[in-house]
């Protein structure tokens, strides 16, 4: 079996990919996808820590992931609703063009 840090590094990589995407892409949907990737990387960390903890029967990490998935689903729904609202208002989902608060 692989040691714990394999999973941790893998999840760090996934997190970085998501972060890079969220920072570089300008389409709001792609930014949201990047955020989802980061969230999943964090969830993977929780599960890995739970599995490798001395007392896995406590289920703490797993519970956290279950709640996190629930919140993430709601977040995705609300986020996409926001994106569609922005699209209907500005006719674009390019985040650099949505800058009316910049003054």
């Amino acid at each position, binding site marked *: *079996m*692989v*040691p*714990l*840090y*394999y*999973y*941790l*590094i*893998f999840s*760090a990589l*996934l*997190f*970085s*990919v*998501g*972060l*890079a*995407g*969220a*920072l*570089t892409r300008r*389409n709001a*949907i*792609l930014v949201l*996808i*990047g955020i*989802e*990737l980061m969230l*999943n990387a964090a*969830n*993977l960390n929780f*599960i890995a820590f*739970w*599995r*490798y*903890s001395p007392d*896995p*029967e406590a*289920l703490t990490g*797993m*519970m956290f*992931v*279950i709640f996190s*998935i*629930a*919140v993430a*689903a*709601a977040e*995705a*729904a*609300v986020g*996409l*609703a926001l*994106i*569609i609202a922005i*699209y*209907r208002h500005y*006719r674009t*989902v390019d985040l650099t063009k949505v800058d009316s608060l910049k003054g």
Partner: protein
Amino acid sequence: MGITFAIIAALTLVSAIAAMSLRNLVHCALSLAVTFAGIAAMYLQLDAQFVGFAQILVYIGAVAILIVFAILLTRSSETPQPVISRSWIMGIVIALAVFGVLTKVILSSSIAQRELPAKPAPTVRQIGDQLMTRYVLPLEAIGLLLTAATIGAVIIAMHDKKGRGDGGQNVNSTPSRAEAHQHADETHNLIT
């Protein structure tokens, strides 16, 4: 076991990179679905069956579909940007820096070297028991959150219907938007 991990990790990473870098948005969404599946496989490898299946059910069955709908409703309008722009370099640099710091911390930690303990048997019954006893307060909070989100989605959808008259050129997108909210609804209900 190392080989399985390597295969899943490679597949997940490649599809994640594809999800973040492809030009066609629908391709991005589909590779995102592959990434989600890979992460679910990771969960299964870590003996977390319940979470793995929940991941597939919620992320592939609902979130990916939701993203696909959003892509189709907004029409991809990303103007082609120069491959190496300033923000692009900045983003990559920041991501690499984050990765470097994380890796350094992980490798210097003693916990990270820990070997796999004996296989626990987290039955679904145990999870249910814990949810109803120790974690009952978070569960209620989640229930409240999802109910609020559901009601909010319904209200937005109903409001849309009323505002259809002054929507002008948006008339076409209105029903599909209501549909999108139904899907949002659905996502909530799936988990509750």
